[in-house]
């Protein structure tokens, strides 16, 4: 756990003194990822650098696991934490192996243990140890270097990791991928992570909580849901954007919005005319056709009109099948792209588990907002 108590950092003195971090108090719980968010110059990076004493505190205290950081030797303190920066800073004169082994070497681990650990990390970050171990940083792509940077900061298995825009230097497509990987790894490792970013999307995606700064002050410290639905003031509302309802979609998963017991379902072996009858009786405009437990496609009254034989033959396949953990943002995007407002949700084996409609999505957003208001 990291506890910030009235942390203040003043640069310069006298008339030119500027409070880069101004009386900031909050806790980062063990195992949480906290995104430090804000525009440049808001103090987020300064706060991070105060945490491992790269710059000295002016006032206040930072307490890590019940110990004031000022009571620990600065070099030892840094060795006990992971540190990754936007510029990556891999040592060009060292191989990938030696780069990752930096902190274990400083801690004088045995060679065998270091080797095991480096291999483990490379595999975890999906870099083949046999291919990459003896290469030099210049031989790697930006994304690969970024991964090595992450591996290096995790090398000695620190409990606390400080990351300063660690994925800032990669292109958007690779960034998305490495963020997903980061979340997957963090899901297993459960490190306590302070993560500086200026990208609201990244903050929402990786943060268990978000700390938003302005002019050195902590303005709001909450979960992404609350920040999006209940911004504390206009600054934060502006910062998270007018489209914050859309951003909420990135937080919600299909499983929370889907309809698990839709009634507009028929088996593919039913007669087409009976289906049309069934649909007009119930006023359905859309019907899911099932082949056993798997969704085959859908029919509409229009596609059934004047058709004989089994419904299977007139069924149109779904353009896309949705998974339980897809975000509503992705679902809605699929809907808009395919001009199709009812989609089937399937499990890992492809079995039908429900449907999701534009209405379901709308309702779940409204739910989030009304819940917050209560």
């Amino acid at each position, binding site marked *: 756990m990291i506890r910030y108590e009235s942390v203040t950092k003043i640069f310069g003195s006298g008339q030119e003194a500027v409070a880069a971090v101004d009386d900031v108090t909050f806790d980062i719980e063990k195992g949480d990822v906290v995104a430090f968010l804000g525009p440049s110059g808001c103090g987020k990076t300064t706060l991070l650098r105060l945490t*491992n004493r*790269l710059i000295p505190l002016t006032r206040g205290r930072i307490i890590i696991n019940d110990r004031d950081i000022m009571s620990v030797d600065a*070099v*030892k*303190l*840094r*060795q*006990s934490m992971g*540190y990754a*920066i936007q*510029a*990556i*800073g*891999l*040592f*060009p*004169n*060292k*191989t990938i192996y030696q780069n990752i082994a*930096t*902190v274990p070497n*400083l801690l004088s681990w045995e060679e065998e243990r270091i080797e095991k650990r480096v291999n483990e990390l490379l595999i975890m970050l999906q870099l083949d140890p046999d291919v990459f171990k003896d290469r*030099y*940083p*210049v*031989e790697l792509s930006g994304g690969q270097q970024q991964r090595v940077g992450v591996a*290096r*900061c995790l090398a000695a298995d620190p409990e606390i990791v*400080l990351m300063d825009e660690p994925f800032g230097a990669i292109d958007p497509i690779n960034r998305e991928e490495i963020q997903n990987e980061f979340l997957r790894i963090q899901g297993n490792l459960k490190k306590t992570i302070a993560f500086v970013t200026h990208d609201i999307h990244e903050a929402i995606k990786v943060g268990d909580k978000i700390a938003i700064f302005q002019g050195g002050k902590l303005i709001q410290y909450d979960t992404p849901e609350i920040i999006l639905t209940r911004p504390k003031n206009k600054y934060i509302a502006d910062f998270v954007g007018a489209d914050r309802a859309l951003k909420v979609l990135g937080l919600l998963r299909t499983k929370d919005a889907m309809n698990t017991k839709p009634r507009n379902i028929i088996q593919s072996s039913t007669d087409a005319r009976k289906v049309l009858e069934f649909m007009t009786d119930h006023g359905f405009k859309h019907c899911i056709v099932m082949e056993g437990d798997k969704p085959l496609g859908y029919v509409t009254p229009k596609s059934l009109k004047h058709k004989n034989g089994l419904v299977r033959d007139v069924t149109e396949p779904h353009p896309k099948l949705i998974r339980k953990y897809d975000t509503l943002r992705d679902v809605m995007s699929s809907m808009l792209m395919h001009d199709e407002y009812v989609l089937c949700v399937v499990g890992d084996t492809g079995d039908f588990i429900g449907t999701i409609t534009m209405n379901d999505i709308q309702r779940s957003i409204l739910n989030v907002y009304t819940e917050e208001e209560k």
Partner: protein
Amino acid sequence: MHVIEYITTHKELCWRLTLEHIWIVALALFLSIIIGVPIGIAITRNEQAAKKVINTANILMTIPSIALFGILLPILSLINQGLGKVPAVIALVLYSQLPIIRNTYTAITNVPPELVEAGRGLGMNNWKRLKEIEIPLAVPVIIAGLRTAAVMSIGIAAIAAYIGAGGLGVLIQQGIARVYEEMIIAGALFVSLLAIFVDGGFALLERLLTPKGIRIGRELSR
């Protein structure tokens, strides 16, 4: 080709003077490294000191060598070393300081800041960073400074013959005194050849001591 005739008939002398020349330059270079490299590294921690030191070295460089020998003469006479190899080596050490200190300083300060930041953040102390990152990356540029210093010293050492330091300058000086053209040319030839060899040697050393990761990067960007 009277020059070749001169050389073949005075083989022993030429060889002895060449070795003497190498000895003076090598000793001076060795002392210059011991003094210049640590100074170059030390001043990277203090910008004010760096300016002063580099300015001083710059001024030293502008003193003509003959004048410097003249200045050293009365000072070193106090310890009875006004003439000979001692003032020669001291002068060469003084001249070599500028290229060595400046290159060392520039090389270390040019190490990309993100490497220093990463090193600090990971918990490397000053000494570790210097040893494992800053110096290895600076080595090629430091060697380039030594190269300049060495080549320059070979030339200046020839002038030191006037204060009785010996070396290949003897051939030139006596050749002039005796109006003995072949002797002058032989001396000049040996000095030039020596300079060319040493220059090539340092160029090779520079390449060999460039960290592999940097060399690969250069080849890739070609």
